[in-house]
């Protein structure tokens, strides 16, 4: 199967395939709708971290402290956060 390459969010890595996946539905934006606010601005790191940790917890029941460490590891090299 040929895979269609799609951009990934520069904050969390979420694959952005459809316009509604992008901040404000604008496909030229580097971040996804989950990592941005109503004006399309990138949310604070702590908020993105908590959101990502909650994905691990809610989907697979991973312990909160481990979920937080996994989210930190995921975000560490993302363009939005690697220099923080």
């Amino acid at each position: 199967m040929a895979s269609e390459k799609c951009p990934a969010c520069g904050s969390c890595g979420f694959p952005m395939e459809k316009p509604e996946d992008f901040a404000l539905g604008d496909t030229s934006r580097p971040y996804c709708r989950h990592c941005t606010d109503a004006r399309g601005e990138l949310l604070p790191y702590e908020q993105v971290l908590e959101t990502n940790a909650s994905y691990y917890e809610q989907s697979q029941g991973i312990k909160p402290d481990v979920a937080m460490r996994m989210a930190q590891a995921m975000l560490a090299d993302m363009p939005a956060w690697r220099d923080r």
Partner: protein
Amino acid sequence: MLPATRQEQKEATRERLVNAAMDLFARGGIAQTTTADIAKSIGMSHGNVFVHFPTREDLVIAVIDEFGRRLATEFRGAFEKELGLRAVLRAHLRVLSELEPFYARLVTEAPLLPLKVRSTLLMLHAGVAREIFIALEKERKAGRARKFEKPMIFNTWIGLVHHYIVNRDLFASGDSVMAERGESLINHFMTLVKA
């Protein structure tokens, strides 16, 4: 045909590396395969690998991301056609069966891999879980499925799938246990959730 731009050449090289890595990881294991092995398999200098992937971990993650992209494409097809839970499960297993040798290594070695790699795999699982939860909720509202604790029902599905994949030599005679046994796993899961 216009000559490829530098960016296109770079992307093509990156793709070759990802494909070669997926192949070698599947055959020799993720922890045991070196970047030098991967470079050699496609006639590339070892140093060139690091132009594209600064660390070995980044290359492993790129392979998992490729897997994630294929899943996203399959799920989009199932979602757009509103085909329901069975179609979501089939979409999941279709991608697993295409990449099964690599995936088998990944789930077998996962507890020993760096946290960053493991986090990427489990985030992929979160994406699969989301699709299952949405489809299951629709089935529940239509009176065809019972209500479950979300992590528990996802872990039931992924645990079942992983057991067959990790022990694939015990369950399948061909190359893909998901191709041979996948439909019976789906039937079992659908019976389990039925209202």
